[in-house]
């Protein structure tokens, strides 16, 4: 079956993703590599630095709508959250909270906090979360886009959890603990991190979509991410006590319904989906098949 080439989000660099998502020529980068804001910690470990510390931030337009955008570069130290890296993201979101563009787009591609900068990175992650809640409080939505090669793990996954909505491809992975970590703690019988199909059906974009964590599932094609993100731009619903209660009740129901399942396939079957076919469905097919 002849295939037309896709513009892969998974394979693109952070800069290529930003260029492909925003309207051509609209992106203005803040603290570009020429500013050389590098990590103050990596030198102590004789590790190479990057002039943007592995994250691109700036402003532009998405189908004409003014947005702020950050994109983590998975190819630099696994997209890890270092001190400068996190501060750039925090600054961008706080600036958005003050200037009120129509949305903040967060392209998360990260294994979590940078090990060499543990404490600074952890603090930086929590600062990002606070900034997201501040943006949401003033009505600026934060939309996470997941589909990079590093997945979205650790601190980055919690940041994803703070967003208004997520767009993901099936290549995306979203989980607090990475597969290797789970295998180390729980044993290979519980979770074989080298079984790639198991890893993806557990943490991958499709399972997160079926669970409701991901709002829109797209194919690995940058224009598909653009269309999906643009459709999700609407004023943020700030977090309040009643919305948190609704969320908690949904989680309680989820445990009650699926708590005894030991594999994502059992969950899909309980949802009434053809469990063996889910992995092979396109984003459009699975979206149509997803139970309301």
């Amino acid at each position: 079956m002849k295939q037309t080439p896709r513009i892969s989000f998974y394979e693109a660099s952070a800069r290529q993703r930003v260029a492909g998502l925003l309207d051509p020529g609209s992106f203005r980068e803040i603290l570009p590599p020429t500013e050389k804001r590098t990590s103050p910690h990596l030198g102590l470990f004789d590790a190479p630095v990057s002039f943007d510390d592995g994250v691109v931030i700036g402003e532009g337009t998405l189908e004409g709508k003014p947005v702020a955008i950050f994109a983590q570069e998975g190819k630099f130290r696994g997209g890890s959250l270092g001190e400068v890296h996190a501060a750039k993201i925090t600054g961008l979101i706080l600036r958005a909270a003050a200037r009120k563009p129509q949305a903040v787009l967060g392209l998360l591609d990260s294994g979590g906090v940078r090990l060499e900068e543990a404490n600074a990175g952890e603090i930086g992650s929590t600062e990002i979360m606070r900034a997201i809640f501040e943006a949401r409080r003033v009505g600026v939505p934060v939309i996470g886009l997941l589909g990079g090669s590093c997945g979205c793990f650790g601190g980055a996954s919690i940041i994803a959890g703070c967003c208004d909505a997520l767009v993901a491809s099936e290549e995306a992975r979203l989980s607090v603990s990475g597969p290797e970590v789970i295998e180390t703690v729980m044993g290979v019988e519980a979770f074989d991190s080298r079984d790639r199909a198991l890893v993806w059906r557990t943490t991958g974009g499709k399972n997160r979509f079926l669970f409701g964590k991901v709002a829109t599932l797209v194919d690995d094609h940058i224009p598909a991410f653009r269309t999906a993100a643009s459709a999700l731009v609407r004023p943020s619903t700030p977090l309040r006590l009643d919305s948190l209660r609704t969320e908690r009740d949904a989680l309680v129901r989820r445990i009650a319904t699926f708590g005894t399942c030991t594999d994502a396939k059992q969950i899909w079957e309980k949802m009434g989906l053809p469990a063996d076919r889910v992995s092979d469905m396109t984003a459009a097919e699975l979206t149509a098949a997803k139970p309301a």
Partner: protein
Amino acid sequence: MSSPDKVARRTEKLARVAKAFGPGKVIPAARTVEFLELILSPGDRLVHEGDNQKQGDFLAEKLAQMDPKKVHGLKLALSCIGLPEHLDLFENGIAEVVDFAYAGPQGGRLAELVGNGTVKIGAVHTYVELIARYFAELRPDVACLVAVDADAEGNLYTGSNTEETPALAEAAAFGGGIVVVQANTLTDNLRRIDIPGEWVDFVIESPKPFHLEPLFTKDPALIDETRILMAMMTMKAIYQKYLPKVLNHGVGFNTAAIELLLPTYGEELGLKGKACTHWALNPHPTMIPAIESGFVEAIACIGGEVGMEDYVASKPDIFPLGHDGSLRSNRFYGQMAGHYADMFVGATLQIDPFGNSSTVTADRLAGFGGAPNFGAENRSRRHLSEAYLRAGAEAHQGEFMPQGRKLVVQMVETFQSANTPTFVERLEAWEAMKTAGFAIPPVMIYGDDVSHVVTEEGVANLLLCRTIEEREQAVRGVAGFTPVGLKRDRTMVANLRDRGIIQRAEDLGIRKSDVSRDRLAARSIHDLVRWSGGLYNPPSRFRNW
């Protein structure tokens, strides 16, 4: 060496088995060790089936459990030393000498056991060389083989991976030997008979299906731009120039890159229909886009590939299918098809300045497999083709007797990894010769068989070299920053480049900025599944969805 009373000994062994197990060919799996001890006598030559893909793992496990007091001094012969049990036979004192073609994953341990005298090597072979010797001086006393299904009469269905089973069965059955088969399932309804029951003495239903290694599955996601550059240079400098119609590709990522560039760059170069129409090849998943784009007319399969069954079954015009609709492969015939092909393209671990190459290193005895047959100038070829004549015109220019020439292309990056150069002044095979006690170094492909060496630095056409000095400088001239490359004679290399013997990317009109993964027809395993219309079913470990 087969002894004159071989048939008498066979009759005696069969009588012993009949006494212990009663009549019939089916042996219960639980009594396998006892059975093997009855059919194997000290000093017997045992052929065990197992290659780079399928493994006779159940029988290997049981052979290693035999009592060395009863069975010892065995002469083991097998295509691939692929399982730890093969070497356990030596540590347990059951076997003493081995003839083989390939050692793959056991190469490290083999080198160690040869070094301390536990294993004696008869010879390291190529696949067809070893199979041929089973019909001459290495006739098996017992052959332990592998099948998917068997019936009580001993008829066998081998599935997609028939490979060398027919050759091994024939050598033993018609050479006074005993043929024993482990089958995944005993059934009355075989979907096809690959081996007639008359050739088979005993069948055992193994508790677990035999292991099948997806050796030919290369994930397009792992093909980087260096490989794409090398692939583009190879396609322009060699495929477009000679237009080889029948060819064989090695198992590595370099040739996988070419396969994935055929529908894009290959189409631009006008190769479709003019070159690459017939192949001697396993069903590589990376061939799916080229097949779907109409490049391929037929593929002679040496073996099968896990996950490709349904896709292969959907292409009866291209793949050799039985009337039952499943693939029939054959290593011997596939190797022969590659032997008589226009071109071989492969890779290696080390090359010396004269183009000799080897995958043997000081601490690994990997063996040769099929590469020396695919990758050798074939002086027994008589049929003609455009590529064969074009290459021959270059190689034999100015000679009295016109001749053709097979294209043998070595595609390597100048470094295997940091500090491990591919180009070396002296192959480690020389060291291995000393450790293993060989008379000459184990060389995979000899330099005078090689027609072209391709690296990221360029293409060296050795056919056009007129002296051994020119050949040496042509190799050094593409060896990059390796010690071999740094010792090049700059004047001579410049002269070779002027004469088109060395071609850089820019000489071929390839701009490095045009080299991109976007050119690959598929960039992931999932893309291959899409190209296959959902018929390719990759093993779990290759999925990221």
